[in-house]
C-alpha cells in the first residue's frame, strides 16, 4: 500500500533523511518510532506530498507521489503534529470546508461531515468555535479532518501528544477502529501505544532506518523499550528519559 524507496531529504547541508526504504501493507498499522529529530516528521511530510524529496520515490496505492500527486492526495488522510485548524471556524463549517477541498461531491458532503463527527465523537461541540475547544477535542477534530474523505491511508504524526490519559485511551481506540481496511502510519514516542496498536514497527535514527520488523518478532525476546534503546543507543541519551515519561496508560 505504501512503498518508500531510497528516500533522501537534504535541507542545504543537513541530511534529514538518508536513503530510507520501508513498506506498509494494506490494513497494517505501522508504528514509526525514533528519537526527536530523527526524521519522522520529514518522512511523513514527504509521503503526504507536503515536501519534495531530494531523491528516491514513494508510492501510495501504486501511485507515485511526484507524478501522480493528486491521486495520492485523494487517498491520504494526514494529521500533522499540530492539528491544522482554523481557529475562527466552527467544527461543522471547518469539516465541510475540508471535505470540499478533499474533493467530496457537494451532495455527499453533509453525510460525510456527519459521519466524521460521529466517528470522532464530536457531536456535543459541532457548533463550537475551534479556537475555544480543549486540546483533546482539537486533536479529535484533527483526526476527523484526516478521515472525512474516507482515505485508504492515514498518516498520524504523534496523535496522542499532550492529551490526558483518558483522551489517550479514546484516541487509541479510535485509531484501532479506524484501521480495519486502512493502512495507518503512526508516529509516536509512547512505546506501550505501539505495542498495543501496531502490527509492524519501523525505528528511524539519525535519518536512517535502524530496524523494520513485525511487532511479534521484535518483542519475542526483549521488551519494546529495550529494543528501542538498543537500536538508538549509539547516541541520544535524551531519548531514554523521554520514553519513561510516556510510559503510563
Amino acid at each position: 500500500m505504501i512503498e518508500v524507496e531510497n528516500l533522501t531529504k537534504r535541507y542545504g547541508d543537513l541530511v534529514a533523511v538518508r536513503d530510507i526504504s520501508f513498506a506498509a501493507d494494506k490494513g497494517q498499522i505501522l508504528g514509526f518510532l525514533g528519537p526527536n529529530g530523527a526524521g519522522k516528521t520529514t518522512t511523513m511530510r514527504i509521503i503526504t506530498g507536503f515536501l519534495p524529496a531530494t531523491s528516491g520515490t514513494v508510492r501510495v496505492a501504486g501511485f507515485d507521489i511526484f507524478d501522480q500527486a493528486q491521486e495520492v492526495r485523494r487517498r491520504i488522510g494526514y494529521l500533522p503534529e499540530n492539528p491544522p485548524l482554523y481557529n475562527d471556524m466552527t467544527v461543522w463549517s471547518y469539516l465541510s470546508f475540508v471535505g470540499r477541498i478533499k474533493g467530496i461531491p457537494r451532495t455527499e458532503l453533509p453525510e460525510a461531515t456527519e459521519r466524521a463527527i460521529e466517528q470522532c465523537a464530536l457531536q456535543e461541540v459541532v457548533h463550537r468555535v475551534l479556537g475555544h475547544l480543549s486540546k483533546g477535542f482539537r486533536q479529535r477534530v484533527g483526526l476527523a479532518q484526516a478521515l472525512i474523505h474516507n482515505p485508504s491511508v492515514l498518516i498520524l504524526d504523534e496523535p496522542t501528544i499532550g492529551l490526558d490519559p483518558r483522551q489517550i485511551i479514546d484516541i487509541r481506540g479510535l485509531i484501532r477502529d479506524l484501521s480495519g481496511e486502512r493502512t495507518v502510519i503512526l508516529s509516536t514516542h509512547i512505546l506501550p501505544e505501539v505495542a498495543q496498536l501496531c502490527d509492524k514497527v519501523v525505528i528511524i535514527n539519525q535519518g536512517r532506518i535502524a530496524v523494520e520488523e513485525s511487532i511479534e518478532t521484535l518483542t519475542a525476546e526483549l521488551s519494546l523499550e529495550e529494543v528501542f534503546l538498543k537500536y538508538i543507543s549509539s547516541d541520544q541519551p535524551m531519548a531514554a528519559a523521554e520514553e519513561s515519561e510516556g510510559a503510563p496508560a
Partner: protein
Amino acid sequence: MRNVLAIAGKDLRSYFTSPIAYVVLTGFLLLAGWFFFNLLAQFNQLLMAYMSFRNPEVLDSMNLNEWVIAPLLHNLAVVLVILVPMITMRSFSEEKKSGTYELLMTSPITVGEIVAGKFLGGFAFIFVMVLLTAIYPAILMVFGDPEVGIALSGLLGLFLLGSSFVAVGIFTSSLTDNQIIAAVSCLVTLLLLYIISWPAQSAGDILGPLLRYLSLTEHFNELVKGVIDTRDIVYFLSVIALALFLTLRSVESMRWR
C-alpha cells in the same frame, strides 16, 4: 473552480467571523465620510464666495466631479494603500504559522487553485469596500447633478486599484510566515508604486515616461478624470497577473527547495 470558490469563501468568511472586516470597513467608511464632509463643505464655501464676487466664469468651471468626487477618490486610494496590506497580510502567512498550510498543500487541489481562491477572497472584500463608498457620489446625485459616467469611471478605477493592491498583498504574504513582514513589505511596495512617477519630470526622455507608466497614480488619475482607456485597464490587469504569477512561483518553489 469549485476548489477556488471553497478557498475564497473560507477566506471571506474568516474576515467576517473575526472582527477584521468590521474594523477595516468601519475605519474606511469613517475616513471616507470625513473626507467627503470636508470636501463638500469646502466646495460650498468656495461656491458662496464666488457667488458674492459675482464671478460667473469661475462658477461655471466649478463642478462636483472635479471638486468633490475626484479628490475623494484620490484620498481613498491613499487609505487603501494603508488598509489593503492589513487585509491581505494574513492570506498565506497565517496559514503557514498556524499549520493549516499543510492541510491546503496536502489536499487534492492545485497551487493555482489555492492562489486563485486567495485572490478571489480578497477581491470580493475590496469589491464590498468600494461598493460602500459609492454612497457618496449617490448622495451628490440626489442633491446635485454630478456626471454619473465620470463618477462610475472613478469607482472602477478605485476598484481596479484595490484589486491590484490585493494581488501584491497576497504575493508578499506568500513569501513569509510573519504577518508584520508581509504587511510592511506590501505597504512599501504599494507606496513605491504610488509615488514612483515623482521624479518623472526631470528624469529625461526615456526614464520619465517609463516611471510614469509604472506609476499606479497616473493610470488611476485617468480613470478618475473619466477617461476609460484600455491602456490603463491593461496596466492594472498586468499588475494583478504579474503579482499572482509571482505568488504561484513562490508557493510552488517550496516544493523544489
